[in-house]
């Protein structure tokens, strides 16, 4: 029996202990609740400290321009396919691109895809910011770059997503844009360059130094817009002469005019700092598997072209020689020794295989040149289009060649004069003149294989361009296969485009690619579906 007092203590202890337990449990719960302190603070934790949610139009423009030029005048497009299809260059080790094998769907998908989600999307943001600021000095140059880029897309693939593209982050915007007919794309490209050119007439140099091409100069962009307008207009000459003529007239008579000297060229000058190098020189740094094409060298050598020593190296034998396009690897391989490399100006100083010196790292990439504009004018004149007449053709033609010489650093006036006087070169007018214009334009486009390929499709010149014996198709491709990504995730729209345009293969001709009325190039188009 516990004494009363003790019992009391015991009871008290019991109560105390119970309370203590309760207290401890409650304290625990309180600590726990404090630990939770859920809710608001958490949103702050997720504030991204790494990246901004907005960017200046200037920094976006710089990047988009660099990215776009790197793509279309670099190794993912130009030296991937353009230069081989145009047969400026040939592959001499593994010939997969040159035989068109590695231009199939799998291989061009990345180029198509990235053009949209990289430069075109960024350019769209710049245009939006420029319009919001009511500043044509911002939106108009971006619009011109958008046209320059979109032209590569539509000329390479035909119908492309365009009018409803790039809007998935806008209210109601579709993530699966339909494909626009190429004709509609062209119509909008014309409108865009016209609108940009008009607006640039009263714009200020808002982009300033952030514009790596013209430092924001509105007058320079206006000339680029008009010149680009002329390039596009001439492209459709075989399919819609009237529109081509009207658009050429518009380009030539627009305020600001077109390029009037090589100083006007749209050129991206590369810093050459080891990071932003001319993409061709960056490739030559480690790759030695391209040589001059026989097609190209044979014509230049035949004409004793003064640009040849600029375009090409001599071989060990001291001569200029080309390699055949589209042969198998064992056949191609001896040409590593016996065919000419590209000229010193393309080389980046040291390479991993030999040292040529060369300013290649800083070599400008030419988006559009005075010489090309003159060739367009020469052709327009010969065809009596765009307000010009055939009597003016020879002048434009000769000036175009001279401009190209100047552009490539050929200064020997006597050599140029004797070149212009050669029977093959001296302007003959008529159909022969159109052929001469096409061939000379093809020569001057060295380094822009895409445009050289587009022009060949339009003019069939030079007619010696033909697929090599190991080519996987018996014709030079007239377009690329659509993107595998697009087939996967935007398949219905791709199929609609295929229904509109024709089978999704190398052979289907895009809208403007109709057989030329003149000149004709018999034989080369054999086998084209």
């Amino acid at each position, binding site marked *: 029996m516990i004494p009363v007092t003790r019992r009391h203590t015991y009871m008290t202890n019991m109560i105390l202990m119970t309370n203590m*337990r309760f207290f*401890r*449990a409650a304290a625990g719960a309180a600590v726990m609740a404090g*630990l*939770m302190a*859920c809710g608001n603070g*958490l*949103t702050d*934790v*997720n504030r*991204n400290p*790494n*990246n901004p*949610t*907005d*960017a200046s139009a200037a*920094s*976006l423009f*710089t*990047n988009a321009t660099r990215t776009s030029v790197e793509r279309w005048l670099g190794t993912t497009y130009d030296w991937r396919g353009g230069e081989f299809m145009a047969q400026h260059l040939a592959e*001499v*080790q593994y010939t997969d691109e040159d035989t068109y094998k590695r231009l199939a*769907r*799998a291989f061009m998908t990345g180029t198509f*895809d990235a053009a949209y*989600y990289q430069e075109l*999307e*960024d350019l769209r943001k710049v245009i939006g910011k420029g319009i919001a600021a009511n500043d044509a000095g911002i939106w108009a140059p971006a619009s011109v770059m958008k046209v320059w880029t979109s032209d590569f897309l539509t000329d390479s693939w035909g119908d492309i*997503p365009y009018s409803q*593209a*790039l809007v*998935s*982050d806008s209210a109601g915007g*579709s*993530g*699966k*844009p339909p494909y626009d007919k190429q004709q509609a794309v062209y119509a909008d490209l014309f409108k865009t360059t016209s609108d940009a050119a008009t607006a640039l007439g009263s714009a200020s140099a808002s982009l300033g130094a*952030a514009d*790596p091409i013209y430092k924001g100069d509105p007058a320079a962009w206006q000339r680029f817009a008009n010149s680009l307008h002329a390039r596009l207009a001439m492209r459709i000459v075989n399919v819609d002469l009237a529109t081509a003529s009207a658009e050429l007239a518009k380009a030539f008579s627009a305020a600001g005019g077109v390029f009037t000297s090589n100083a006007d060229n749209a050129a991206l000058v590369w810093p050459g700092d*080891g990071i*932003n190098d001319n993409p061709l020189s960056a490739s030559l*740094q*480690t790759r*030695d598997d391209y040589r001059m094409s026989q097609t190209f060298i044979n014509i230049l050598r035949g004409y004793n072209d003064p640009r040849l020593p600029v375009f090409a190296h001599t071989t060990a034998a001291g001569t200029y020689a080309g390699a055949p396009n589209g*042969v198998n690897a*064992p*056949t191609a*391989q001896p040409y*590593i*020794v016996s065919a000419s490399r590209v000229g010193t100006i393309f080389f980046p100083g*040291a390479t*991993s*295989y030999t*040292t040529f010196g060369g300013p290649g790292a800083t070599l400008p990439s030419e988006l559009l040149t005075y010489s090309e504009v003159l060739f367009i004018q020469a052709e327009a004149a010969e065809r009596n289009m765009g307000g010009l007449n055939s009597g003016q053709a020879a002048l434009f033609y000769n000036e175009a060649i001279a401009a190209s010489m100047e552009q490539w650093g050929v200064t020997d006036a006597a050599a140029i004069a004797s070149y212009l006087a050669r029977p093959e070169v001296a302007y003959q007018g008529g159909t022969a003149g159109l052929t001469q214009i096409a061939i000379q334009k093809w020569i001057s486009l060295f380094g822009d294989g895409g445009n050289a390929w587009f022009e060949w499709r339009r003019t069939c010149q030079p007619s010696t361009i033909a697929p090599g*014996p190991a080519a*996987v198709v018996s014709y030079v491709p007239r377009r690329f296969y659509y993107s595998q990504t*697009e087939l*996967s*995730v935007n398949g219905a*729209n791709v199929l609609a485009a295929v229904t509109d345009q024709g089978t999704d293969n190398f052979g289907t001709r895009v809208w403007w690619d109709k057989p030329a009325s003149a000149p004709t190039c018999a034989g080369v188009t054999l086998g084209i579906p």
Partner: protein
Amino acid sequence: MGMTGKISRFLAIASVVFGLAPALAQAQGTSISGQVTGTGGAPIVGASVSIPTLRVGAFTDEAGRYSFTAPASATGTTVTVMARRLGFAPSSAQVALSGGPVAQNFSLSPSATQLTGVVVTALGLTKERSQLGTAVQTVSSGELNTSHDMNILNQLSGKVSGVVMSQSGTQGGSTNIVIRGQNSITGDNQPLFIVDGVPISNENHGSFSCCGGLAIDNTGKDYGSAINDINPEDVATVSVLKGPNAAALYGSRAANGVILITTKKGANSSGTVQTQLTSSYTWDTPSILPDYQNQYGQGAGGEFLFVDGQGGGVNDGLDQSFGPRLDGRTTGCNFVPNSPSNPFAPHTYDTSVPCSQFNAPNGAPWVAHPDNVSSFFNTGKTLANTLAFSGGTDRAQARLSVGSQQVEGIVPNNTFRKFNSLLSGSLNVTSRLTASGDVQYINNDNHNRAGTGYNSGILEQFVWFGRQVDMNVLRQNMTSASGGLYNWNYDFHNNPFWLQYQNPGEDVRDRVTGNLSARYHVADWLDATIRTGSDIYRWQINQDYAQGNINYTNPSYAGAYTQYAEYSNANNSDLMLNANKRAGSHLQFNGTLGGARRLERYNNDQQYTAGIIVPGIYNSSNAGITPTLTSFVSKRQVNSLYGSGSATFNDWWTVEVTGRNDWSSTLPAATNSYFYPSINTSLVLSDALPFLKSGPLSYVKVRGSLANVGADAAPYQLQTVYIGQSTKFGSLPQVTLDNSQKDPNLKPEKTNSGEVGLEVGLLDGRATFDMSYYAKSTTNQIVNLTVSPASGFQSQIANLGRIDNKGFEALVDLTPIRTAGGFQWNTTFNYSQNQSKVVSLAPGIDTYVIYTDWYQNLEARVGQPYGVIYGYKYDRDAKGNLLLNNGLPGTGAQGVIGSIQPKWIGGWNNDFRFGSVQLSFLFDFHRGGKIFSVTNMWGDYTGIFKNSLKGREVDWNNPGLVIQGTDAATGQPNTTRVTAEQYWESLYYNAEQYTYDDSYVKLRNLRFGVDLPVNFASWLHASSVNVALIGNNLWTHTKVPNIDPEFSYSTGNAQGFEFATIPNTRSIGLNLRIVP
């Protein structure tokens, strides 16, 4: 007498009903009674005591007592009385049935079985296995350390059902582990790892393009899984919580299951220190190398002459082996005239010209070097030591272990060193308060890991290696006279020794993990625990490239480097109340209530440049080209409240409910709070209906569970951002919109899962079966969906889709032989099959590209299992014949080639013991699933694999193959002859040709051990000394040619693709274990 007594009576009635013991009706028998106890004299409840021959018996009550009566008809005979209880070795006694009462006690010693005992479950809570309603498999340290593989994950291989693993092969490399199939399309599908209650990072650095995608340096080095830092010798048990049901209390981290690792602790040893030493030394060799041809040397079109290795000679810039026949000729390796354009025209070798090679420009016999790849590899050596001290008193216990691992790799100049130290201790501060903690320091230091993948991998080179190349010449001469690279080809390859000796690579990881906890015994039935723990590491990776390296370096400069540093700090704190209360003798309640906070901080910084100025100084102050810098910081916080409650009725029926609410920082405020419930039940049928135990059955349990868990997003997925570049265009800043469009309205992922299970023990636990069937479905997947590029984005973050997984797992554990002489054979087989199905993606989207390489995709396609190889197939006509152009097969469009999911996987382990000798071995089975082998694609293309001999000529003038198929131009059967070279090259990027059935059987490990005599052990003051011969990865049977089918070059979700992985090693070695 309680419930057990009632059950005994029930049993008696049941016995009558089932006619088991007709003699019971007679009253004049011998009554037998006694007590069954375990070691230490504790009574054993529920043991069966019986006379099998007479089919009579009873079960023990709560005091371990039993009593039954043998029939009078047997009086006068002597019978065997057996006492059996699952989890104990049975015991028997001879009893003479006298007619009067007989007393017979039994003492049972425990024996291991998969079906009883205590397991560690979610939150580190221990539970009776009998009360567990979900699938949890425990692997003990004894089972783990048979193979002494220092990778804890590899040690689980083949031992746990439902778990699929793949390794990337490199020593110190990583392992991908997936439990019950992938739930998430793009998220992490690997389980959560928890060591002593604290989550541990298993950051994956095993993918092809590691470490944030170093632009210059796509090294593809496998930097290992962070979980490998754990020393297997420190592990007491590993509990695998298979999927959402078992792991529900982990809420948003539970969907992929949890691997709970409990480390060894000190115990009360009355103050003495116990020392344990384990040592092993193994010799490692490549397990599988490709089967090379040795009949044709380097070259193309049948000819080869070396001048400069860059195309200056005949085909000498090319690196394939379609050159002249390796017949020992010394002249005539090129044709006269040199015109291979028509391969079928007659060719004559020019015998006036010597056959020149890279090491013999003036000619050398043209012979094969069959061992030129295998001789590149060394015999690797792995020395692993662990020394552990433990001890304690009744108040304080501690354990300290120090472990080291030193590896000399199978590739030259590759070493790997790991050092672990783990200190753990606990202190009973008062009778109510226990404080415990542990701290672990780990240092990993790896020199010159071999790269995998295409750009600088060793094995990449070995799918091109000219068959006449003498490896010894390359070994002896890495640099040329002019100081540059010396090699057999200068267009595409670095000398493989140059890669290992001239391009120093080092990666070091310093890691500290630790936790502190205090447990207060509030009342008999209530404990409160507070615990905090962190996992902190810093990881530095440097990779340098010497001047003259043919890739990554700008030739105008003196070399290149890349540096990467990563810091991670994950802290988890918990406060938990655990209640355990018995209400009378029939009911037991368990409850847990807790709160937790998880805070993760992570950042990485990297820099690289393609050009340094002074050779050999690889840092930013010596950069000639401005280094490109990137950095990334992330933070995530998740707060949680959770609780569970269970009731156990009569020790045989348990029902448990759990709930957890998480608040995650990575989701929008509107959806960042989410609740995850689960319910499970376990019914021990053999205790509920004891008559079940009277036959061969000794234990039957059924279980079932439903759970809903999920996952939050990665940080910063709510708002689309712009991305700047550290490098300027001249001086101009460059910024681009992110290619991934974010979603401000993300919701958490959800996984609903149900499972049922059956556990059966037969013959006193000599045969046990544990089976589960589960079905789970994950919805609202957070996916970076590939969208139409024309939308302006490459991908879009979105909640979408549903993936279902259902499957069956079984574990069989048998002891076919157990003799009185001490011979025992124990064998276990586990089997798992999982069927996965992508039920839906976003509206209108029927595929998601998980991974793309070599122009082939790994996709999640609606209606297909997760992970189908969607690749380029042969061009075929309507009848399925190959369509051929100029005699060569064409590659058509992409299509589904097969699923990477295995049909089933299994492991078969055998363990033989005879006295002091043990033998164990484990086979792994992997049936079905597809693997796309880029190694095989290139090995055929380059003509160096034996397979590519098909169609080769006698010597160049009668070459070729006529491929069976339809000529695309004529529609007629093909008659055009092509060369083997043309044929094998035409199969480039044809995934249909190079996708294989990934079935294999592996002898994963074998151990033969001997306990040295006890007197020798005691001379060493040890209780036992064991020496063993061990072997890992000893034998593989597979139909996949040339590669180890187990490996892929990624340990992330990109499974099913293989290329140029360093071969897994076959190790043979010795192990010594001294136990105090």
